[in-house]
């Protein structure tokens, strides 16, 4: 079995207050391992984003324990959590969240900059990361002049340029068409398989199922199936548009 990157046990998360209180997560156990590409699926409002943010140390669980690369996160302050993210986690969001005033290369380089990696070496690394997502030609382009798929690829390059152990992606292909979606998924799958990372992707889209090593389903804040390493994709219909 591969090394455990993230281990979550008994995670509960209540969002909102008073009348608007929602039990978004109601006791989740989940383990993410190096080299594994996991899909997190579930209906809208089931708690996917909440879980992703908890696993990514962006939201503190109301109860339960979370361990990231051997570090328990309970009791760690905000700066400490930021450090854990900096050291181990890369995020990819549905709406890219690129910096509109920075070029593609600068957007990627920003992930190194906050780690105090600067100078020509950082510039070179950023370009290499763009190269991996097939965007070396667009390094000096502003996000506004890139297509959605290209922007998402920049965001992915940014997420893995600093070599995080885990990449957490929230509906990275939701805003993209079939071809772009497929290429994004392939890049993320490669990130898991070739570069030995744990990759967790939240998606609604059944067409990406063939890429997954493992599918985790969530409903109403609880996991339906936490089977690890099961090649569930074999049981799925072959009509998927995104075949690997």
């Amino acid at each position, binding site marked *: 079995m591969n090394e455990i990157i993230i281990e979550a046990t008994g995670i509960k998360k209540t969002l909102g207050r008073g009348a608007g209180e929602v039990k978004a997560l109601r006791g989740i156990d989940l383990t993410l391992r190096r080299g594994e590409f996991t899909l997190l699926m579930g209906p809208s409002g089931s708690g996917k984003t909440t879980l992703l943010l908890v696993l990514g140390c*962006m939201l503190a669980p109301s109860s339960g324990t979370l361990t990231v690369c051997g570090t328990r996160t309970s009791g760690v302050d905000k700066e400490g959590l930021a450090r854990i993210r900096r050291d181990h986690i890369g995020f990819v969001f549905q709406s890219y*969240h690129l910096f509109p005033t920075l070029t593609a290369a600068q957007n990627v380089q920003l*992930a190194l900059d906050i780690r105090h990696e600067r100078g020509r070496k950082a510039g070179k690394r950023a370009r290499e990361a763009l190269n991996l997502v097939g965007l070396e030609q667009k390094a000096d382009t502003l996000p506004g002049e890139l297509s959605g798929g290209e922007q998402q690829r920049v965001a992915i390059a940014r997420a893995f340029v600093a070599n995080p152990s885990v990449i957490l992606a929230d509906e990275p292909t939701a805003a993209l068409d079939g071809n772009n979606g497929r290429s994004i998924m392939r890049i993320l799958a490669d990130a898991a398989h070739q570069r030995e990372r744990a990759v967790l992707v939240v998606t609604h889209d059944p067409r990406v199922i063939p890429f997954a090593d493992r599918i985790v389903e969530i409903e109403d804040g609880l996991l339906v199936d936490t089977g690890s390493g099961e090649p569930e994709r074999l049981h799925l219909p072959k009509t998927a548009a995104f075949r690997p």
Partner: protein
Amino acid sequence: MSLVPTLASRNLFHDRLRFVATLVGIVFSVVLVMIQMGLFLGFGRMVTTMIDHASADLWVLPKGAKCFEDPSLLDAKLRDKVASVDGVASVVPLVIGFSDWRLESGELTPVFVVGADLRDRSLEPWNVVEGDVRALSQSGAVVVDRSYYDRLGVSKIGSTAEIRGRRVKVVALTDGIRSFTTTPYVFVDLKNARTYTGTFPDRASDLLVRLKPDADRDTVLKAVRAQVGEHEVLTTDEFRSRSRSFWLFGTGAGAALFAGALLGVIVGTVIVAQTLYSSTKDHLSEFATLRAMGSSNGYIYRVIIYQALLNAIIGFIIATAIGAVVVEMTAKSALPIVITPWLIAALFVLTVVMCVASAIGAIVRVVRIDPATVFMR
């Protein structure tokens, strides 16, 4: 190089309108402070011009004299007593005072008469552009400044008028000897000054003491003090600062200037704080993204503070350019605005402090938001 400056400057220049608004705020504020402080310095200089141009090492003044223009008088016989002190080279009485000047047209205008013994060249008109100061010894001779032609109803050497019913004639003209009181200075000979100001021969306004080259100032000062009883003896520096503090703080003029400057600082801070805050608000999702990427809060503060500093530097440069124009424009006025390198340096520090202080509001805002909320939508 870090991307902090890049990010900060792009954030700043991205929204041109807001950037311009910020700059207008900073420039307005800095120029206001600069002018107030420049006036303060200019005023501080103007009130001591006479002292600056008198050649004296020590001043003997009537008790409690607050400034050069103080109308109180002392006993002129002190002159001999002071002159007998070891180390004193010369003692010259000065007679000053307000008087009335009647133009050829019959109109009356107040003037400030400055009379010194010309033989001693202790306080005589400077910047003479026409005529000869030595002609002042003639009876009825006066020297006036060109800038007061209209006020005094004169137009050239030889023009005439009356002071206290006595006929006077302009024998020389100066350029730029202007009084902050707006009352024109009229230089005359000591004897004439007594007549024009109604000062008895045994009285004088001040005594100007010059020391022998090898004399020790402090020793002579003590000895002179012992001779003059209740009268005051000040060094030129002491008299200058006494005059200055009387006019600047005794009158409230300085306080008013400082209040104006303070207002400028407050307005500037509020404007910068406001625009920086709204800029930060607009970029909250970017700051949240930085946070998600694992950046420290310090990194984000640096971006905001860098924005504040850029505002400060650009605003300051523009304000200084405007200040230079204002200085040029007021150079020939009764109250020129004086901007010294120290003032510039102090203003720069002030601008930076103001802008960085303004950044605190924005920083507090960023710290308060939970970056997760940005990604939950």
